């Protein structure tokens, strides 16, 4: 291999000293660039900064009816039918749909969840346990599958109380919603907390298949509203909605039902309801689903969120986590 010429020590030192002023300038530039990057990276984030006060006027008590029938599911549009055996908690393959069901038109809001906590605390069904609210869950059957963890009957976390991302305040007895967050989806809630909310009112979390049909209808669309996604369709990462500030706290939740075709603070939304009229079935927050799969302690989420790119908003995309997981980007809605 050809070598570069070898300079004598003196010659190299002479050349080095000649380059010094330029080198110093370059070093200063690189150091300044690095310092600016580091400073920008370490800028404080005010997590509890209020959201823009935008009232969507969503009727959060509304339910959507989804009729029995076949539908396409998954990325490859398999024809499937829902026949879920609630005693066995399994899907029966390719059976005929034998029930209609309903799902909430809107995600459960902070206000709704605060009301649930207050009622359940008063009744003694749940409790404040140190830095969290916890409640009873009857446990899962353990199959001893590799990596499966036991979910025993007992008290499990619903929400953390020491995390600044929680949009609820408490005086130790009563919970209220922080100003401007009333109509935003409830987040920082574990699967146990989501499941308990639905169960408290006599409902349940939707199964994955129910969720997917409610989002998709009976055709092969990848998004609840159709084939393509615009920034005006949903709240996703860097979608430039009025609630995000990418130089500070990043993407944040939008009020439930925000993408309804109206203009808010000069931001034109597109009506992005699913074929059955459900809102926020893509983006805003991941939604817990109710399936408990054999040999697996993980729970599954659907819909993508404010923190994900548009590809995760495609309605067959799944996310999963342990049932104790909570995040500013995870919420839920109920089915019945």
């Amino acid at each position: 291999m050809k070598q570069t010429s070898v300079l004598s020590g003196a010659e190299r030192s002479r050349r080095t000293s000649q380059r010094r002023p330029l080198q110093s300038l370059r070093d200063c530039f690189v150091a300044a660039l690095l310092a600016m990057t580091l400073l920008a990276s370490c800028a404080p984030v005010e997590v509890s900064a209020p959201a823009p006060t935008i009232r969507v006027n969503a009727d959060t008590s509304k339910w959507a009816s989804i009729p029995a029938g076949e539908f396409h599911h998954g990325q490859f549009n398999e024809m499937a039918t829902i026949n879920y055996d609630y005693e066995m908690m399994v899907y029966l393959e390719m059976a005929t749909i034998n029930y209609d069901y309903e799902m909430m038109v809107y995600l459960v809001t902070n206000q709704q969840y605060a009301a649930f906590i207050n009622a359940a605390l008063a009744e003694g069904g749940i409790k404040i346990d140190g830095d969290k609210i916890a409640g009873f869950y009857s446990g899962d059957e353990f199959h001893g599958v590799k990596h499966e963890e036991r979910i025993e009957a007992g008290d499990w976390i619903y929400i953390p109380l020491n995390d600044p991302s929680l949009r609820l305040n408490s005086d130790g007895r009563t919970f209220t919603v922080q100003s401007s967050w009333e109509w935003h989806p409830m987040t920082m809630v574990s699967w146990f907390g989501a499941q308990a909310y639905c169960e408290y009112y006599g409902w349940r979390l939707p199964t994955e298949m129910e969720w997917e049909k409610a989002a998709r209808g009976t055709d092969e669309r990848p998004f609840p509203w159709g084939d393509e996604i615009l920034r005006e369709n949903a709240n996703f990462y860097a979608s430039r909605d009025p609630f995000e500030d990418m130089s500070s706290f990043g993407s944040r939740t939008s009020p439930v039902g925000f993408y309804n075709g109206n203009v808010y603070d000069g931001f034109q939304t597109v009506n992005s309801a699913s074929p059955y009229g459900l809102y926020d079935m893509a983006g805003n927050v991941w939604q817990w689903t109710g399936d408990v799969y054999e040999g697996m302690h993980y729970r599954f989420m659907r819909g993508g969120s404010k923190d994900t790119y548009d590809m995760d908003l495609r309605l067959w995309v799944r996310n999963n986590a342990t049932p104790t997981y909570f995040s500013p980007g995870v919420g839920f809605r109920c089915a019945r």
Partner: protein
Amino acid sequence: MQFVKDRFNYLFGSTKGLILVAIAMVGIVTAIWGMLSGPMAEMGVREAVIKTLGMDIVQAEREGRIVILYHSIAMAIIAIETYMITSLLKMKAFFKTAINVIITAGYILTLTFGLVFAYFGHNWIFHGVYLFGLSLIFFAGLLLIVALWPWNPETYITDKDYARTKKGVDMERVAFFATAVTTVISALFGAVPGSYYGHGFETTIVLNLGVWGVVTPLEPVAHMIIYVGATPSMFAALLLLIWNWSKLIREGTAHLQKSNFIQKLGALVRDPLKFGPTWQMLFMNFTTSGIGIFMAIKLDEIFRVWPAREERIELTGHWHALSAIIATIILLYYGDMIGLKGKVRRLYGWAILILSDIALAAVTIFEMKRLFIAEAVQQPLVNGLMLGIDFGLGLLLVLLATVMVWRLIDLFKPKGRWAEEVTHELAQEVMK
């Protein structure tokens, strides 16, 4: 006509020409398709590229498109590595020519027809040609295995300075042979389920089960097998690094009677193209190997507790960093191979090292951020890291483009650099 013929012979008939073509192809694909995701998508560049080039993007086909894109880039890299092997190791001229011709046709067909199929409407003939290209590369791999057979007495070595068995079997050749065999087997593992899931050929179920039948009994000890294989590999890399750095220091301080630490350090980093490849191997420990081992040890505490999406981000960063660092090592070797000198050599070498390492360090922090920062407060950090990644990779691509334009201009010169490289073989250079 002679003008075109001479250039064609250089580009497709010489080792350095073939490597240049493959690097140019990868560079073009990376520059264009890199604009379709991440921050480029956020800034709206993706939409502009899609519209300008008339791409046909169907939401449901994203994963399929990416599979084809990554296969296309990977096949060009495989081709570059193969050219280096056929140029460096002794083999019959027939094999060398056949392997180079077949793999060149294979990766060009794979890359061209694969990307056109995936991104510009689905012409299934193009998909067929894409698969044909992959098959050619597989066939070239089989030929390479035959050509590299280490127990051929004609390839035995007698020089005791080189690793060999008592009989004279060249251990370096054995290593290349083993790499070729395992790569071809790995390709089979990918091809069998790929053909099943891609086309639903029922008959491949049998083959598929066969593959799993081999793998499944080993599954409980799979991690142990990986550790047993990886540990000596990493140890060998460490030995290479020690040998290389000692050599650079020894040669760089030869003119001094006694050298101090600063002089030794100066000698070590004097030539970025000699120092760079092993530095990148060391840096790989911070961006890939070290992270991998850490995650493997903490699997139950971290990986299995993180939500799937965080896991995906970590893995995506991990494998992109690994691929990118290998690409930079190839670029450093390439700069050395084409004999860059003086300031250009230093600028090229240091730019690759500094820019890629800034980007890769930022990727590493990004993928591991959940260990030390909460989601709610991560945005400023993410912004800073994205700046580092875009700055590093963007300027690296500009540098690569500059080199490619320079080589393109060179091709128009009657006695350009290309004319000197037509007959050069890498083996000759190693002997120097």
